């Protein structure tokens, strides 16, 4: 068959899938909105922000006591609420704060005279991760306080140099990772459903009995799903850039990597749909794999900084490379030992492998029929 014929097959399959999806409006809307749902959910996850809501009970209002509270505020570890001892206990009991720091009476006089001071800290030690943050942040405030007030007595200090020109806050970092999982979910859901629908309705037999090449059928399915996926990708990108204000350093790189990731996830979705053959399985499977993959692929920070086992597994996941290239396009830094060029080539390899694999599975399916 000629290339022109194959191109016609690709176009016909793509148009058919787009029309088919538009008929089932409820599902199409759901699949388009699912990625944006994930974005909102993950932002909820991030809202905790790592700063401990803490009550400070000031039993001394002297300048040193005030400076100590200022040191706590500078530590970027607490959301401080000055209150009375009784109110602080109430807040702790209600679960509204996680710690009470009491600056004792005579604080100023004792600091001045060099008398040892006990600083009572009550901690709601519900979770050792958050508890350790408080256990480290209080000493940080103490050292910082002494460093400011008595520079000659406390001479050992941390002198910080940053590798990146600016700090990237948690929402800025995570929303870029969420973009990737959004593209993944949209691609898997849309393409997987399109492929499975042919099996459910039995129309796959007609396609397989036609003289069309298997790769052209699969490519048509990828193109059709990619067009629909572009809509959900555009919505998520718009929210991230316009609402959250996370702007890419390179717009062209962002667009290029988006198209690459859409192609890849749609190809994987087609593969899953061809294998599962029913939407009842495809949808929970897509959602079920997206979250764990997202969590272990360096969504919250470079995978290398976490568990070595998970980092090794993450290197086999396309999401890991997807997050890396997106972080580069948005923030200009790399989160993997491999370079951006290497990551891009690996992603291209994933796209080709997924299309070939789904064409192979489709060929195998025709034998079974």
């Amino acid at each position, binding site marked *: 068959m000629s290339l022109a014929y194959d191109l016609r097959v690709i176009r016909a399959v793509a148009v058919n899938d787009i029309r088919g999806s538009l008929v089932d409006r*409820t*599902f199409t809307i759901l*699949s388009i909105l699912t990625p944006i749902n994930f974005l909102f*959910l993950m932002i*909820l*996850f991030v*809202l905790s*922000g790592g700063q401990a*809501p803490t009550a400070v009970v000031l039993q001394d209002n002297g300048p040193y006591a005030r400076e100590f509270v200022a040191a706590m505020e500078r530590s970027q*570890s607490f959301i401080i609420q000055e209150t009375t001892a009784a109110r602080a206990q109430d807040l702790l009991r209600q679960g*509204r*704060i996680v710690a009470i720091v009491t600056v004792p009476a005579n604080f100023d006089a*004792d*600091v001045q005279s060099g*008398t*040892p*001071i*006990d600083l*009572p*800290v009550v*901690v709601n*030690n519900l*979770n050792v991760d958050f*508890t*350790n*943050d408080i*256990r*480290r942040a*209080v*000493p*940080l405030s*103490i*050292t910082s306080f*002494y460093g400011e007030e*008595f520079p*000659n*007595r*406390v*001479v*050992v*200090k941390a002198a*910080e*140099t*940053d*590798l*990146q020109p600016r700090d990237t806050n948690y929402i800025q*970092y995570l929303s870029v990772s969420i973009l990737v999982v959004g593209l993944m979910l949209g691609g898997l859901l849309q393409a997987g459903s399109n492929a499975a629908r042919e099996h459910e309705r039995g129309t796959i037999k007609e396609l397989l009995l036609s003289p069309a090449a298997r790769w052209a059928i699969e490519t048509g399915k990828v193109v059709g799903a990619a067009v629909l996926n572009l809509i959900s990708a555009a919505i998520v990108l718009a929210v991230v850039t316009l609402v959250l204000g996370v702007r890419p350093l390179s717009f062209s790189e962002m667009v290029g990597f988006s198209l690459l990731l859409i192609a890849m996830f749609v190809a994987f979705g087609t593969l899953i749909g061809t294998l599962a053959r029913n939407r*009842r399985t495809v949808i*929970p*499977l897509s959602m079920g*794999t997206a*979250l764990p993959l997202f*969590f272990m692929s360096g969504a*919250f920070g470079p995978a*290398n900084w*976490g*568990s070595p086992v*998970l980092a090794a597994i993450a290197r086999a996941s396309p999401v890991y490379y997807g997050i890396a290239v997106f972080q580069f396009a948005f923030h200009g830094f790399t*989160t993997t*030992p491999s370079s951006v060029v290497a990551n891009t080539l690996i992603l291209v390899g994933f796209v080709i492998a997924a299309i070939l694999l789904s064409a192979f599975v489709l060929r195998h399916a025709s034998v079974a029929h």
Partner: protein
Amino acid sequence: MLNWRSIWALVRKDLTIWSRQPTTIAATLLPAIGFLLIILFEASAVGRNPVALVVEDNGPRAQQLAQIITDSDAFVAHPMTAQQATAALRAVDVAAAITIPADFDANVSAHRPAPVQITINNLNLDFTNDLRRSLPAAITRYYGEQPESAIKIRVRETDLRPVDISLPQFELIPTLVLLITVAGVVNSGLALAREFEEQTLKELLLAPVSRVSLIVGKFLTGWVTTLAVAAVATGLGAAFGLLRPEGSSWLFTLGMIALLALASAGLGVTLGVLLRRTQRVVGVSIPLALYLFFLSGGISVPAFLPDWVQTIGRFIPTYYAVHALEMADFYNSTEQIARDFAVVGATALVALGVGVLAIRRRAIA
């Protein structure tokens, strides 16, 4: 009103169909098992950042500080040369490089400023702030170990809870609740949507079976399948030592799991009646379960979330399920257990009522 023979026949039929769909069962189990494994693997790494430690001074003070950094539970310190540290930073193998300079001891002895250099790969403020906190914490400890410490303020910590709860233990409870919610909502919703899609519901509605019996049958099937899924997760949690209530607390734990499974199954039945299509049921129910999960605190401590999220959380039944399970599992406590059981139980009853009402309306339609 209730025909138990018909209910049993319905349950048996639905359980047979469910057991013949291993892919659907796997898809329901996958997210929570994935989460569980991630929690287990990440346990050793959370809160500990990999750092390169360059010690250029062999003096006793420098060595003492280096030892404190190495022993700290905030770092995974890798001793390196300056060049190796630079390469490790560039390769994103470490989050920071800490350098104790060659003149450290001399400067400390002479009461001159003795800065400890820390170069941070500040690509994410969460990690960066951890590092910014951890080095001064190590320095404070260093001063604390000096016979004549310049720092006179000592922290006197009182913990509200008798024991610290490890992160994997803490995260298991909400993950278990998520699993039960997803399994209950999806399995029950699918069982009903299938009846609509295959038009077998008409036969059921035309049969001499009350609507209540029909809904109770679907309810019980959803409950049994959810319990089966919950049993796997609970067993895994107990086997890994993450779930360890003692004595009667096991009773409360299992009771709450059973009640939550019932409430989730009820929600699924209602969604199945309302949405009537499998794709719609799955498309709505999984995000719904995830929203309930995150809004009720997710794997975070609710107090760290904004007030509005905390307020919404108090209207979500899974918030109470998580609370009851935490109390029973972590502290063998029954604190507010009656409230928690009442809320989740009431949710199950409301779901049953709405399900009956919805199917009655559908039948009329």
